């Protein structure tokens, strides 16, 4: 059970090789997570690459990614384990069939219908019972209710699951656990206490430019910078939904596809819908940013 990362620098390089440009604390926290075996709670606005971090960690460490997408009403039958009821029933029927001997058959059957054979592992259980260590992603934990968080505590602190009929299933390997949250609800103290905390924010111009150019290699330096500056300016406006990093990448790709030579007011007008997704926001952006683009107030630093 060796930790996949040896140093902070190496973590950063490995993540970079996996297509994820880690910021200052991201590499450090990922490194700590793998060394200390503690879950990481990643919070931040939508679309800053929280989920992507978990995927990149899986790629960088060569582990399998087990993902649990949270939603309201998610319960332990869908997250932890479930008994395979139909199989159990078949077993009972097959064993208890001979007449007269029903009593003996039942006693035997009762003991083994609650064996591992009849257990359907769900993401959490399969993550901790996997032979090879995995990366476990618990996505959007803030979408579930508090009771579910409480259920997670055992898994996250001791890496074990108690099944009343079977006993405790301890982990065979220690997974790297990444929990993400959009901060739509305050998580419980108990959960936070068990995690390392990482706040991801929108990157600054340079970093975002690197990210965009990594994912849209055809984009010229000037154009990329202009694009990122526009996106950052749009984010500074008070929008319903500020554009995420993924959307700036999409926009870069869209511009490449269109073969745009330059990013001007007209181009923005046409392709704006890639980064802005609300009618009211569209008007606001066209009004505040479009004008500046036409007047060539953006992108001067690039030239």
């Amino acid at each position, binding site marked *: 059970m060796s930790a996949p990362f040896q140093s902070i620098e190496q973590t950063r390089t490995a993540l970079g090789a996996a297509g994820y440009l880690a910021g200052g604390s991201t590499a*450090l926290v990922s490194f700590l997570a793998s060394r200390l075996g503690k879950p990481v709670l990643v919070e931040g606005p939508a679309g800053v690459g929280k989920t992507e971090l978990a995927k990149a960690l899986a790629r960088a460490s060569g582990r399998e990614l087990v993902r649990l997408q949270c939603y309201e009403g998610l319960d332990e039958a869908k997250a932890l384990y479930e008994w395979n009821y139909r199989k159990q029933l078949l077993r009972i029927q097959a064993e208890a069939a001979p007449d007269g001997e029903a009593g003996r058959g039942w006693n035997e059957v009762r003991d083994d219908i609650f064996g591992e054979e009849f257990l359907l592992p769900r993401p959490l259980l399969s993550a901790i019972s996997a032979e090879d260590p995995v990366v476990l992603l618990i996505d959007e934990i803030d979408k579930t209710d508090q009771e579910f968080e409480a259920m997670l505590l055992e898994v996250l602190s001791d890496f074990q699951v108690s099944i009343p009929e079977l006993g405790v299933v301890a982990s065979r390997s220690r997974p790297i656990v990444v929990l993400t949250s959009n901060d739509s609800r305050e998580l419980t103290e108990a959960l936070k206490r068990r995690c390392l905390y990482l706040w991801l924010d929108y990157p600054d111009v340079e970093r975002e430019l690197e990210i965009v150019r990594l994912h849209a290699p055809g984009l010229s330096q000037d154009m990329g910078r202009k694009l990122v500056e526009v996106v950052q300016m749009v984010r500074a406006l008070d929008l319903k939904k500020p554009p995420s990093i993924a959307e700036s990448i999409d926009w870069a790709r869209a511009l490449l596809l269109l073969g745009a030579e330059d990013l001007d007011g007209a181009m923005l007008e046409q392709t704006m819908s890639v980064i802005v997704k609300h009618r009211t926001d569209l008007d606001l952006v066209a009004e505040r940013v479009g004008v500046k683009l036409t007047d060539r107030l953006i992108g001067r630093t690039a030239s």
Partner: protein
Amino acid sequence: MAPRLLEFADELRREGMAVGTSELLDAFAALREVSWTDREDFREALAATLAKSREDRRVLELVFERFFFRAAEREAVERGQREIGVDADADGEHGPAELDVDVLRERIRGALQGRDGSDGQLRDLARLAIAAFGRQGEGSGVIGVDVQRIRRTLGLRGQAPDHELPDPESVPRERLREFERHVRCELERALIERTGALPPSKPLRELDRALPSGATQDLAAVHRVVAQLRRRLATQGREHRGRSRSSVVDVRRTMRTSLQTGGVPLELRHRPRRPRRPELYVLCDVSTSVTSASVFFLSVLHALHDSFRKLRSFVFVERISEVTDVFERERSFDAVSRAISGDAGVADVSGYTDYGRVWLEFLDEVVDDLDSRSSVIVLGDARTNGRDAHAAVFGHIAARAGRTFWMNPEPRLYWNYGDSVMAAYEPHCDGVFECWTTRQLEGFVEAIADLRPPARST
């Protein structure tokens, strides 16, 4: 180092962060893994293990800065070390000897605008600025004053927030703030050196620890509190369920059951208690006397509308106007506030609040709908501008409604001074609260949950 860290954790606790033993153990474990010599890594490792929210992180950064700065200074004072002087530390070619304020001004502005000035470079510039400034002999000895004077001498202005008028002279605000922080830090260092003693440590100011936030973030905070409010209000009905003695016997069902026992009613059947569906009536003052608070109030209202289905909201100045449909129609907060200030038609002639008239109109409009299930929440400063308060009418409203709460945006100290008639309304309310920050809003939520029905007023 371990005792130092414990001290540090103590300081964090004093600032209101919950740092438990398990967090500390994590921090020590984390510090075993990273090198202690890199300041950034060291701080990040502490932040990842000790701070568990964005606010905490911010506090930790501030405390970290203060704590380790002081720790280093204390060490220096104890050992009697002195720095060799600013001159030697500043970079050679631009030594203070030939230092010209204009040149310095250009350099600092360049560094602040360029975004590429490193931390160390900014610090050097801050030292240069202090040195140049000190020569003019204007130092007041009060650090806060000096920082502002230095900034003025250098002619540094923050950019206007809306980017409308790009001024080549101005510098980005965050950068300017950073520079000021460096200046402050260096001034403190100089002061400590002069006096040879540490000034007493001060708790963080509320302003400092607040996140640099936009309106949307405040809105998010309000939404969080209101979500909590909804939970509290929704669960309130359940507390009564256990007291079956006070519930009503369902005669029909009792007779039905009695058929099983030969017509003898052995078991009493009660009518099930329906959990209370909160019906909220929110009245919000939007007059000029509460201008600063009314944005906050409107955001509270906005959040309430997201959470409660049975909610009717009213805004008032001189007259009252129902704005429920505005909130239902418009999703964005900006649009709502525009619509309300535009065409709610609440200000008649004078634009002064007339609480008495508002009560009369409110009573007129909703009196038939008010019942014991409804809660009335008033957001206002109770300043009547000398007009009749009509407290009796308000009392009538409060009597019809199940519960009445008043949130006042003024500190309790100012109540009943001048034309504030809070005292006239207070006895009719189930609770009155001062409320101008989200934290106080949380206090309100808590108080609602604790309030027993017989306990009138606070």
